[in-house]
């Protein structure tokens, strides 16, 4: 399993919603924080296919794929414990 971070750039509510729907349709485990999506993929092939599908929505975005865990971590402020737990589960477990 792999953790990924998708950041939409200058996206409106409609574009956020279309990304949200796409991830739901594909059965992807994710957590949305505004324009930021933390999402889990099963294989590299699925990751590449998902990135291509997001491209086809014609939104501006940055996609980070975390392949090897080398001591990475997430720090935050203002998030609930439940949200932080879910982010760690998506990115690192």
């Amino acid at each position, binding site marked *: 399993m792999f953790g990924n971070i998708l950041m939409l750039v200058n996206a409106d509510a409609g574009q956020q919603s279309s990304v949200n729907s796409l991830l739901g349709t594909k059965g992807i485990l994710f957590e949305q924080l505004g324009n930021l999506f933390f999402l889990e993929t099963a*294989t*590299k*092939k*699925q990751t*590449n296919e998902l990135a291509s599908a997001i491209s086809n929505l014609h939104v501006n975005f940055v996609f980070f794929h975390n*392949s*090897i865990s*080398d001591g990475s971590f997430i720090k935050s402020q203002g998030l609930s414990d439940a949200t932080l737990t879910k982010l760690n589960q998506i990115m690192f477990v």
Partner: protein
Amino acid sequence: MRRLSILLLQVLLLSTGLVCAQKSFNDFVQAYPIGDEPNMRYLSSYTKQETMLFEANPIVRYSFYNNFVKSLMNDSTHMQGWYISFRPQLRMYTDNSKPVKTPSYRTYLGTQHMFRLPNKSDSTQQFLGFSLESGHYSNGQVMSAFSEKYPDGSKESDSIYNTITSATKLSDILNRNSGNFSTNLTELILNYRCYGLDDNYQPKSMHSINLGYTLYHDLFLGLLDFGGYSDQDIKLYGKHRFLLTYEYMRVFEHWKNRRLNLKQSFEWIEKPHASVNRLRMESSCTLYPFSSNKTMGVVASYIYGHDNYNFRFVDSGHQFSVGLCWSQFPLFQMKR
């Protein structure tokens, strides 16, 4: 040969000065795609003159530069390694005294390169590569190859060589306890391989072909006059060797993280002494059954032809072996 040697030395010295800073864990992982795997194995005996117990073939490589792992994982088209290599070969026999006889010592300077070929799909990756190594191969012994009484190079030893004809069976007269073997050599191997990849771009199958050529030469690295052979010895060794190898690897679908390797190799010596079997072929099957240690395998082989233990190339016959080996190029992600 001399010009090639000078060029090789210049390139090796230049590459030593181009070592990049170590930035991540992958910089400390050094893989070598071409070449034999270190192993320890039981070997059956070629001749009744001595009975083998086991053989150890450790291989130690210290890289000056090696980016195979990082480059393979990041879609680079050229991957390379530059290194010094030590490849001793030790055999233990059943003799009560000095059971380890005439071990081989091989030291090389070497480089390996792989070039990623254009691929039609994400599920395959093809590479062309080569390995170039040059160094010294000997057994550290000082006595004549055909007498335990006289030192190698002495008049008495030379007179024994003068009695050797094409009808002489070298295997019958070889000094198996202290006979000297020494040469310098350069080996070039060309490699083509094709991987089938799974959905995580890790290999699930592989076809690999090697074509190789080894030249025995008198000067170390083609430049320095030490560690070479005598005129009499090279007529027995043969200067040229040719190698052809095919290897197939398959990861088991239903036995996770385990894989099987099948390998067939042929070696041909050009114009050795008439009593030497020019051909050596080895068929091996390696199973990597340990999910906790994917580099360690169990290997069984059938060998026919000349031996590959320094001067014992004069022996020939059928051999069987079984033992453990350790992969020098384990499976990892081949593209982004």
